[in-house]
């Protein structure tokens, strides 16, 4: 049989070789990818409790008269979405006040029962900034 194989053109040998290569490649992928994915997700926090991801120095908030909140964003946010929620008296996010689009100054009229505000990235489901009064 060895003589027979030696007689074959290398291109022909490759056909059986290809079958072997396919088998080895899929064994490698089948083992390596799940291991990589496991280690990639091992450090993730699935507890659901999130900390603010924004830098506190990015925000300056000040209550004005007539329940008007003045919010200053000092530096651009990394998050693609920033929705401002009023926090109700029970501490839960309630009414949507508006969105932040970039650096600058914003003013929002707060509901009567608001005890603070929360800036949330709706796409990444992350809290960026929270403050209470």
């Amino acid at each position, binding site marked *: *049989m060895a*003589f*027979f*194989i030696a*007689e*074959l*053109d*290398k*291109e*022909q040998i*490759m*056909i*059986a070789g*290809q*079958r072997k*290569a*396919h*088998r080895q*490649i*899929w*064994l490698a*992928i*089948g083992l*390596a*990818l*799940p291991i*990589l*994915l496991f*280690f*990639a*997700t*091992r*450090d*993730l926090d699935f507890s659901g409790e999130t900390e603010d991801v924004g830098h506190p120095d990015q925000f300056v908030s000040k209550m004005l008269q007539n329940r008007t909140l003045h919010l200053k964003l000092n530096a651009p946010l990394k998050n*693609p*979405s920033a929705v401002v929620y009023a926090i109700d008296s029970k501490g839960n996010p309630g009414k949507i006040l508006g969105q932040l689009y970039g650096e600058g100054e914003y003013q929002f009229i707060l509901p009567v029962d608001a005890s603070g505000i929360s800036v949330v990235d*709706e*796409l*990444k*489901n992350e809290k960026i900034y929270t403050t209470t009064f």
Partner: protein
Amino acid sequence: MGLDYKLVLWNKHKKTYDKIIVLGMLAYLVLFFVLSFLINPELTAETVIIRAFGSLAILMLHIILAIGPLSRLNPQFLPILYNRRHLGVSMFLAAFIHGGISIFQFHALGSTNPIYAIFTSNMEYGSLTNFPFQVLGFLALLILFLMASTSHDFFLKNLSPRIWKGLHMLVYLAYALVVMHVFLGAFQQETSPFTMTFLILGFVTISGLHLVAAFKESKVDGLKSSVDDSGWLEVCNVNEIANNRAKIFTVAGERVAIFKYDGKLSAIHNVCKHQGGPLGEGKVVDGCITCPWHGYQYLPHNGQSPPPFTEKVITYELRLSNGIIYINPNGFSEGTEVKPLNY
């Protein structure tokens, strides 16, 4: 089979398949746009376009990767295999739109070179969880571009089938990169249970199909046959082969096709010189063994393509004893004339 190259080799069946591909892609995109705007109206149009084309490309890549093992497990899938190249190029176009708009949206509007920005905007190369997933997608797109741009028969002929096939097996690396790209991207950007579930189910299905098909073929390759005193291998009874058809037999790990036609028997190597198609699954048409994949033809008695074509395959000697076919495992050089066996 032709002497010249055409931009696209279309026939009635390929046109039907291509229409299904185009309509399927359009239907998916429309459905994705409608559902996205209904479920999450806050998303911008650019984000929806990026996600629509990205998810379409991944879905098509899964279908493409499933076709090969499905065809090896069940010949009914073979007609889809013949059209896989058009599906592959269409998938690349979807991936290219996804990648192109992403690069423009996230990297081309600043002062840094967008390609340089892909590699430097996130430098957490030491972390698995926060690894720059865009780099993985970019590398996968490069591989898919290489494959799509060399998919034409011109490159198959000029690169040689061996190099071409090796090049196109990079699709498995591209698949691994795409899985990591989506998995890490999804966790870093937006944790979607639907995306994760689809990706994990897809991975289990594709890798499972490939491994099942591989071990089935490995079993066939390992089949032992009776050997007579002169070292010839017993194949089967002559009545087990249908007229104008073949029996595929494994000799030293290689497949040989034994054809029965016009009261004669001939054996040639099972692999077509064009793209590695299984000649033994074809039939004898107008006196020529015709590859079921792309219609390349060979004369049964010498393994040569009829003039003016120049393809040649290895031929084998057969012997008949009490209705049982025996094959000499020592094949002749490609294109060697072997007198057909009368039965």
